[in-house]
């Protein structure tokens, strides 16, 4: 897919006055209320030109409402949306230079693939040869030229998804919205489609806001992710940033799996801090601004823990003795649950790098260790 897409070089859109690339799309204090409930609550964000920005959250967090306000299907209760410096929240959907790829695609079932892609172009009164050329280009982009005369129901799920993408890109929108772009595909197809979709969007260079409840989808596709909960952004950052340095317990728990330990601050230096928890003492490789005795949590990802049946040299901190109570073998990795002395269950993910090495089994006494850098202190 990437090979075919590489041949297409869309003309770089002219930079218009106002806005600027860093504030290509600016959402300002946007709020949407349904009765008493605020589906989107005072959200502000700036999105860079060419960026793929993901809104990630569980259902009912307001991410779809936010997307629908960008598309123009919902009217904001208050706040503004600025595209290239121009206020667009008063415009109706068909007046916005924004196109959307709908959840489960919303392809027109009575029209062929070709007519679906041409639909928007014809509405904009483009001359027939221009329409035909653009449809051809789009179908080439998504590698569906041989299927031009098929009806949507004669295509597989993955093909339908590509038609939807071609249709939403045909008008060369300033902003592309994707609503759960991979939600309707089965697991195996998702992994493959994810990369295809990503490379097409990157090739076209369109700025993109996508909504998903699937963190893997958000992580692989987006340059930046906004974690949403109860209508607000909890944290905004690059995928790695959100995973490795979650800002609070909610994000740490929402993205991936995490072991959380509640404890108190006993030592706070610029380059490290020590937290005393019921499990033991954590030596964390970064300083925080807190007071001694402050209650906080330590987050530790399962894959950042090492298991060993022999005691390490230093058992003073970041070392916890326990017994394996559960073990799940996934092929590439194994997941262990280690019961610690105080009754906490520690989740540990170990890569299976050797085919026939020493195997830790249920009932083994183990030492779980981690490095100071792998720990994150969360104050909220």
């Amino acid at each position, binding site marked *: 897919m990437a090979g075919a897409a590489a041949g297409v070089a869309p003309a770089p859109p002219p930079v218009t006055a106002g806005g600027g690339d860093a504030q290509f799309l600016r959402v300002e204090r946007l709020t949407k209320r349904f009765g008493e409930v605020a589906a989107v609550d005072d959200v502000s964000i700036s999105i860079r030109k060419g960026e793929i920005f993901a809104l990630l959250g569980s259902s009912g967090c307001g991410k779809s409402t936010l997307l629908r306000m960008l598309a123009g299907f919902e009217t904001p209760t208050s706040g503004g949306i600025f595209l290239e410096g121009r206020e667009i929240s008063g415009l109706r959907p*068909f007046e916005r230079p924004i196109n959307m790829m*709908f959840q*489960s695609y919303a392809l027109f079932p009575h029209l062929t693939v070709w007519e679906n892609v041409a639909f928007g172009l014809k509405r904009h009164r483009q001359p027939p040869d221009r329409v035909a050329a653009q449809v051809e280009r789009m179908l080439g982009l998504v590698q569906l030229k041989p299927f031009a005369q098929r*009806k949507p*129901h004669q295509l597989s*799920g993955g093909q339908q998804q590509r038609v939807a993408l071609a249709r939403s890109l045909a008008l060369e929108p300033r902003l592309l919205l994707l609503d759960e772009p991979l939600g309707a595909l*089965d697991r195996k197809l998702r992994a493959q489609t994810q990369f295809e979709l990503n490379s097409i969007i990157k090739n076209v260079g369109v700025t993109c806001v996508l909504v998903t409840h699937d963190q893997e989808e958000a992580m692989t596709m987006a340059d930046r992710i906004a974690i949403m909960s109860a209508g607000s952004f909890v944290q905004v950052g690059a995928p790695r940033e959100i995973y490795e340095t979650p800002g609070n317990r909610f994000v740490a728990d929402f993205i991936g799996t995490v072991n959380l330990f509640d404890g108190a601050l006993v030592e706070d230096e610029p380059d490290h801090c020590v937290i005393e928890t019921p499990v033991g003492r954590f030596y964390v490789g970064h300083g925080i601004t807190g007071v001694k005795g402050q209650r906080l949590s330590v987050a530790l990802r399962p894959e950042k823990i090492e298991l060993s049946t022999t005691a390490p040299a230093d058992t003073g901190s970041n070392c916890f003795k326990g017994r394996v109570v559960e073990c799940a073998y996934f092929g590439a990795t194994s997941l262990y649950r280690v019961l610690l002395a105080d009754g906490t269950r520690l989740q540990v993910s170990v890569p299976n790098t050797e085919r026939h090495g020493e195997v830790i089994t249920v009932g083994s006494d183990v030492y779980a260790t981690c490095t100071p850098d792998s720990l994150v202190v969360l104050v909220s």
Partner: protein
Amino acid sequence: MPSAASAVSAPVGSSGGALARLRHINWGRKAVIGIPFAFLVLFFSLPFLVVLKISVSEADGVQFKDLVDFADGTLTLRLKLANYQFLATDPLYLKTYVSSVAYAAGNALICLFIGYPFAYFMTRARPTLRPILVMLVSLPFWTSYLLRIYAWKGLLDDNGVINNVLLWAHVIDAPLKMMYTAFSMMIGMVYTYLPFMILPLYGTLVKADPRLLEAAGDLGTTPWKAFWLITVPLSKAGIIAGTMLVFIPSVGEYVIPELLGGPQTLMIARVLWNEYFQNVDWPMASAVAVIMVVLILLPLVLLNRYQNVEGRAQGDAKRPGGAAA
């Protein structure tokens, strides 16, 4: 020995399979198709054949001569086609057929224009309200249709409710002539057949995916344009079904033209009635009936062909779309 055993067992096994297959023919399924089929053969095809036979028979007093005659070693088949010849040449019959079809088509068209917005706004109503609206549409079926036609007589008559109200309000000086005209007949037809248009239209419109209209809007279509480009084409099946359901019975409608129509509103069913019961010319009446059935069957065949095509398309749609939904 083992080879012999297997050689013997093989045919036994296969014949057992065939027997099992025979036993496995789904008799229940056959009956489900067979009962209505038998019903149609018994109560539609056979009477129709009888009518067809009468239409080509020669009357012999009150009896009809046999069509097939075997005498002197010669088998003769005598078909009297004079009735059909007469039908084709007499302008009155031709005019009546044409006007029947025209009235029926007009009825279907008016029902479509009233019924479509009606059905459309039903689908736009709150989901809790929709079953009540459907019930209201079918409410007229709860009283006899003859009674309801008589009620229209009371409304449209020269000294009926409408004329009296208009006279009382000094809108008119003399009663309007509404009864026994094409107008009164069309009112009765539209009124009677409107639910048959609304219900299938509602059935297809309610299934329409609102996201398709959003997608059309997103691609630069105004709501009005989107209605014509998306909603109307996707309700094609409902439009055809509703139009057929109204058109077909309207062609042969007897009661409404008889009660509300006037002498100038020519409808074929009234001619049929006259041939049978006033002229007592059964072969002629039968010929009129046969042509009428053919006239009605033609659009039905077309509808059936269209539905087959649609059905196949939808059958295809279920496969890949199932997981996505």
